[in-house]
């Protein structure tokens, strides 16, 4: 007798359903961002970049975008500038309290963002300072530093000490050794760390909601605000841009890490 539905095909259709459930909303957002009508419904009646155009003429969204870009870039640069010497110290040198310090720098990964958000805000209150861009920047550095640290440290462990020792023995000073050997070998991880850091900063809502002011909004916080009024199709376009950025940047970072792992 022929079985109508085998167990295997059940699993397959179940898997398919899970995927649809996960990705359908995202696909819908992307598709609807190209829908010319105000109230989107399927099937779409045409294809246009209308909402992308509107975005370009919405100064508050452009402002948020600019904020996000500046904030993300500065976060990436500063977090990496802290992470590189720290990783160097943690991997190459022995000192007291090393494990404790290392744990401390990685800890924000494990602390709920809400707690981080509130904590930093309370700290600011205690200092009697108003919310500002500096607060956002500081907060985002704290948020992203652990990830950059992990990436850079992992790479640093992989760079054999002998490379540096060889350079020193050949007459390069410690600084010249760092510049001509350690840094180039570390640079893919530095680059990857910056991309991760930028992406996390660019994408963060929870903690940023606590820190942002009316004039210092980031794109996700802006979207969150827009949703409270109405669901404008502009949000779909904005969302699509966010998706592209937050997927492509970590992929690029991953590519560099892998490429480097192969080379050495």
């Amino acid at each position, binding site marked *: 007798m022929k079985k109508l539905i085998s167990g295997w095909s059940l699993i397959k259709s179940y898997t398919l359903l899970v995927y649809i459930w996960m990705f359908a909303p995202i696909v819908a957002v992307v598709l609807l961002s190209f829908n010319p009508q105000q109230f989107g419904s399927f099937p779409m009646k045409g294809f246009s970049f209308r909402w992308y155009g509107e975005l370009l003429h919405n100064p508050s969204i452009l402002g948020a975008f600019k904020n996000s870009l500046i904030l993300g870039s500065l976060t990436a640069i500063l977090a990496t500038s802290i992470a590189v010497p720290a990783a160097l110290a943690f991997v190459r040198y022995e000192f007291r309290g090393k494990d404790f310090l290392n744990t401390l720098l990685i800890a924000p990964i494990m602390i709920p963002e809400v707690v981080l958000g509130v904590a930093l805000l309370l700290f600011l209150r205690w200092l009697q300072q108003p919310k500002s861009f500096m607060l956002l920047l500081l907060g985002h550095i704290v948020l992203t530093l652990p990830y950059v640290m992990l990436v850079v440290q992992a790479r640093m462990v992989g760079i054999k000490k*002998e490379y540096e*020792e060889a350079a*020193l*023995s050949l007459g390069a000073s410690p600084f010249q050794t760092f510049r001509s050997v350690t840094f*180039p070998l570390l640079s893919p991880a530095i680059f990857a760390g910056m991309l991760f850091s930028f992406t996390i900063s660019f994408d963060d809502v929870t903690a940023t909601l606590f820190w942002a002011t009316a004039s210092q909004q980031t794109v996700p916080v802006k979207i969150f605000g827009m949703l409270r009024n109405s669901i404008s199709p502009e949000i779909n376009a904005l969302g699509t841009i966010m998706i592209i950025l937050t997927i492509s940047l970590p992929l690029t970072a991953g590519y560099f890490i892998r490429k480097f792992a192969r080379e050495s």
Partner: protein
Amino acid sequence: MTKEKDPAFVKYRRIVKRFGNVIAVDDVDIDIPEGSLVSLLGPSGCGKTTLLRMLAGLETPTEGDIFINGKRINDVPIHKRNLGMIFQNYALFPHKTIFDNVAFGLKYRGVSKEEMQERVYKALELVRLPGVENRKPSQLSGGQQQRIALARAIVIEPDVLLMDEPLSALDENLREAMRRELNNLQQEIGVTTIFVTHDQREALSMSDKVIVLKDGIKQQEGTPAEVYNHSANHFVADFLGHPNFLPVIVGEEQDDHMVVQLENGKTFLATPSTQFKRGEKAEIVVRAQKLKMAPRAEFHEDEGMNYLFGKVKDRSYMGGEVSYYVELEDMSTLHIISFVRRIPLERNDEVFIKLNPADCRLIKV
């Protein structure tokens, strides 16, 4: 007035190195004449690498002084020491071309571009690898990388060349060829060289002088023949390969020999030594290659020779030679290495073993 030239170009004086509670090097003196190749030989963990790294400036001695060419260098930072270091895993810079790798040290020596090129190409020729300058290290084989590491170290004309087990990462047949090449090159350019190894064959075949170490303590130093034929103690004799030890009680000197008594009461003749008193416990050390063995049926006694009797327990071919383990009458075992006989000895064959007293050296226990 001309100053007397110190024969030791590199000198370690009373060097101690501690890592926490571990004593890696314990009160070691070493003299290395200019232009010679000196091996530091010993088992893993005996402090060879640490001694080398202290000369390189990668570790600081806990106590003692190091001199190069009469100048104390303890406080000279590594990049000002002008030494060529070769690492076990070559440590070629993976992101730089072969040219840039070899030229690396010249960049910090104010060498003009033309001279740099000339010297790099000359060094590549010296290690017999011309034409690879545009490749990356990963595009070379292990043996080739080793040569580039060598070129990178000698192109700066270092005062001393330091090599830490440079051949151990190569496979067996390549190692032998590379060993000869290293040896020839060192002779050719005449650079003072320290060679770290745990392989006694490497040390014996390459060195002007061998320094045997154990647990951070210098056991013996001397020419390869000296340390091999006149090992200072049980450890050195054992480490340099295939010894047999026979515990004895020292008797007295007779003619050209020292009369000693084996544990089974038998009398033996050994090479004379002034270092032993009558009645003292000692050991005879005799190399496996020095023992002569034949079937018991062919036994005949020559004047002034030592004899032992036993039964072949085990044998294994090693190409042109055979390695035998013979169980003696007192159940102890002797190791004998001999050329392949016309009629090979089999397991359980009764044999006699002849020992020339000249090959039976006494050492302290």
